[in-house]
């Protein structure tokens, strides 16, 4: 019974925590500009993330060490500095974007400029991190994040042509504007497969005390949670395809996105959109800042746990304190949250090889995983994701120039 409740909570947490500033922005931009044509990218990104989370969760449950610990131990400090720096920089950009997402939601609700909200949002996040536990941070915000189900309701209310949606799940090219199409595809993949997601998941497995008995929970949580969560991103794309695309509205500002739910659901849709943007971005803010603190603490061998009192892991607590406040600065000085989001999603996509390729070696290390090493199917899937990550690294630069 306990196992089932863990599975249910894990799946619900994954669904409630899936949507965030990047997935909301890029899915609606994709739907507004290319209808259902980019739905296949969401499917690809969601499946890739589910596989990466399952593998990093399995690593943690079997070895009792996080992915970051194993990266450092297996490849040495000199190599480890590369993923450390790359993941740190791109996750910091995403963190600033998430604070921007909360701030813009508050601006839309109150009329007070988003720049004024950045520091209060960061302070509220810091108080929760300082006083709260891992369970509160992870599950509390994700449960509230279930409000994002409103995207599914909105998409259903718009009565999409399902055969056309199904057709969008298969890769296809538009006749023009291909640079923009691929730029958005890379942005969507960056939003779907952020390294902080599987680094946080791996650290969370240890925070929750996972053992080999949790391998089933891990598989179901990573699989079902992400598939349902990815479904919400597809719903956002569908809503934008049916509300914005017919009117040729392109998403240049976050303010335009609220229309995708106000149109089919009226005032309730508008209010729930603001709640979704605010809660999901706030939840992601907490997750990313913790993921960054985990990254540094695990990388340098400091004591770490969100379940410990701050005086017991002072360096870990100092890192999240400093980072959450620093990340609020770009928004507080008026950086455009949508531009910041788009740039950070492309940078995230470009950073993937440094965390995906080493996983291939770790997942086949019998000393670490014993009989739980990857089978041939998992290895094929991971090689495909690794190749995809290299393609994203190579394509990110020209696409940012041509389509960004």
């Amino acid at each position, binding site marked *: 019974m306990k196992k089932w409740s863990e599975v249910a909570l894990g799946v619900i947490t994954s669904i409630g925590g899936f949507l965030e500033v990047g997935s909301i922005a890029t899915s609606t931009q994709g739907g507004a500009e290319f209808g259902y044509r980019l739905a296949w990218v969401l499917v690809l990104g969601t499946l890739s993330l589910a596989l990466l989370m399952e593998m990093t969760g399995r690593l943690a449950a079997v070895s009792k060490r996080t992915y970051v610990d194993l990266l450092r131990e297996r490849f040495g400090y000199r190599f480890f500095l590369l993923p450390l720096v790359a993941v740190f920089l791109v996750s910091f950009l995403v963190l600033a974007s998430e604070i921007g997402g909360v701030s813009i939601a508050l601006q839309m609700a109150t009329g007070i400029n988003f720049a004024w909200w950045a520091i209060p949002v960061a302070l509220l996040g810091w108080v929760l991190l300082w006083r709260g536990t891992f369970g509160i941070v992870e599950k509390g915000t994700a449960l509230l994040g279930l409000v994002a189900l409103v995207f599914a309701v909105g998409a259903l209310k718009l009565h999409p042509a399902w055969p056309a949606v199904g057709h969008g799940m298969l890769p296809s090219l538009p006749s023009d504007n291909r640079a923009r199409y691929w730029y958005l595809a890379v942005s969507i993949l960056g939003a779907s497969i952020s390294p902080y997601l599987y680094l946080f998941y791996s650290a969370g497995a240890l925070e929750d005390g996972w053992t080999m008995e949790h391998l089933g929970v891990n598989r179901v949580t990573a699989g079902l949670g992400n598939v349902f969560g990815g479904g919400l991103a597809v719903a956002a794309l569908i809503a934008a395809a049916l509300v914005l695309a017919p009117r040729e509205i392109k998403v240049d500002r976050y303010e*335009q996105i*609220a*229309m995708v739910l106000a149109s089919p659901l009226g005032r309730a849709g*508008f209010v729930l959109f603001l709640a979704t943007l605010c809660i999901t971005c706030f939840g992601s803010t907490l997750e990313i800042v913790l993921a960054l603190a985990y990254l540094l603490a695990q990388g340098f061998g400091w004591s770490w746990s969100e379940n410990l009192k701050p005086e017991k892991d002072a360096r870990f607590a100092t890192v999240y304190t400093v980072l959450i406040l620093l990340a609020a600065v770009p928004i507080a000085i008026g950086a455009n949250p949508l531009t910041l989001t788009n740039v950070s999603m492309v940078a995230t996509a470009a950073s993937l090889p440094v965390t995906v390729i080493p996983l291939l070696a770790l997942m086949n290390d019998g000393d670490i995983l014993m009989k739980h090493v990857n089978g041939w199917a998992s290895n094929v899937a991971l090689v495909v994701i690794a190749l995809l990550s290299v393609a994203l690294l190579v394509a990110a*630069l020209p696409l940012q120039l041509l389509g960004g």
Partner: protein
Amino acid sequence: MQAFAMGTLRIGAMLALALSASACGSPPPLDKQLEAVSSWTATMQLARDEHGSGAITTTYATQLRDAALAALEESKQTIGQAAHSKTDSSYAAAALDSLRTAIRALNAETGS
């Protein structure tokens, strides 16, 4: 692995440079600017309809209007540089007029 690390680092640095460079280039071509103006015109029309049906608040509609005004001002500055013929200029003027009209209609709807 070290060579892979150095290569990735170089590409990362190039990407960072390109990201900063792409933020400060010349104005976009006319067709892109016309698309942006027409997108804001449609946004204003949708906002007027949704405000009329009570789906969105006046506070939010006003923010959309302000964003459209900012887009209009920006386009007024840059669209002339991208229009290279009389036909281009008349398209640009018509697009800007449509946006002005849509903004006025939203103002009338919200009573501002």
